[in-house]
């Protein structure tokens, strides 16, 4: 195997993190599964949120998992791409809104 930090085969080993610390892993996975159940938001909506967040945190495992999840749920490609644009817009906006801070500083220091 080529040397790399990421191996696609590791995704399905996610559950094995319990080998080193079973109690916390169980609590995490119980919580994780509960989060994605139908609730005030549909499981479909949560899948799209997860896809957007996966791109924000740039987790290749999560992008793989929630792209497949979206396909299985029959989520359209346009819906998936729009969700990533939401992530992109928030990330871009988070940088740009700090421009106000820069502008404030410039104005304070400048004649």
């Amino acid at each position, binding site marked *: 195997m080529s040397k790399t930090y990421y191996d696609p085969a590791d995704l*399905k080993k996610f559950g094995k993190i319990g080998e080193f610390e079973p109690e916390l892993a169980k609590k995490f996975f119980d919580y994780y599964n509960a989060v994605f159940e139908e609730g005030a938001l549909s*499981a*479909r909506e949560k899948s799209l949120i997860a896809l957007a967040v996966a791109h924000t945190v740039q987790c290749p495992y999560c992008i793989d998992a929630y792209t*497949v999840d979206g*396909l*299985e*749920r*029959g989520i*359209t*490609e346009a819906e998936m791409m729009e969700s990533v644009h939401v992530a992109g817009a928030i990330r871009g906006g988070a940088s740009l809104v700090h421009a106000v801070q820069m502008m404030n500083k410039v104005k304070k220091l400048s004649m």
Partner: protein
Amino acid sequence: MIKSLKRRAHELAEASNQLKFLNGGPFADGEMPTFVEKIKPLGHFPLKPAAIEVFQVNVGYMCNQVCKHCHVDAGPDRKEIMTRKTMQHCLDVMAKGVIRTLDITGGAPEMNPDFRWFVEEAHRLGVQEIIVRSNLTILRANKKYYDMPEFFKANNVRVVSSLPYYKADKTDRQRGDGVFNQSIEALKQLNAVGYGKPGSGLVLDLVYNPNGAFLPGDQMQLENDFKTALKRDFELEFNNLLAITNIPISRFLDYLVVSDNYEDYMDKLINAFNPAAVDGVMCKNTISISWDGYLFDCDFNQMLGLKVTKAPQHVKEFDLEQLEKRDIIVSQHCYGCTAGAGSSCQGTVA
């Protein structure tokens, strides 16, 4: 329009090569468990049938479409067609009253010149349920099929139609350019005579299958999405959505190999193996009959050339007692029917 694997003399057009493929690679070197290895510890091997209630009759491989995932390798260039004589053999068995459901498939079954005769004779015999698996576009392909919705209604046929998505792009990528719009027109004709309408008693079911190397999601959720979208966009109604897993044989197997998805897809099916689905697999209560009258455990085994064992193999020598004692032939493609909520020609099973 692409040509069938058979017309292209593709190596996967040969059933023996498909079986060689399914038994080789990761299954030969022990990297992945074979289907037998998976079901044996559960006490399901040899897989035994229950009471046979369904006749799934493949009346020919000719089709007006050439879908990329087709497990039959059907298309306009396929000439295998069931004769009226073979249909009569099927009717002779059904006349004995054991078979509850006649499930007619193809190809496009409507293209068989004796299709209408076969349906009318089965209806006259009083077969409880007659299913026709229609690709929809055939109903709009030629004037001679325009009255098919009325014909279905007159014979109380349950129409089961393929529609892999409620939008054109994905549907056409799988089934060919323009298929979605033609399918919508056909569904409108079916709705117009009462199919899929509440209280009509005329059942119109749609078949969903994934548009690639992934598994179908929750059948109920997909049905809700389809119903909402088809009603909103086209004022269309239908009864049930049947979610079916793509089985790794024939053209879908070729797609998996060419797109470098084969091992990942098989791994996905194996990881999703659901022991509860084994009890509901359709080969338990179904006999598949090929265009030339031979008997198989299912339409997939038919395409793999795996005739029933331990019983006469032709419909003219149909022996219910021996067939119900036979061992069902299984291979790695059977993982497709036991993944997740299971898969059959009636949708999920678990």
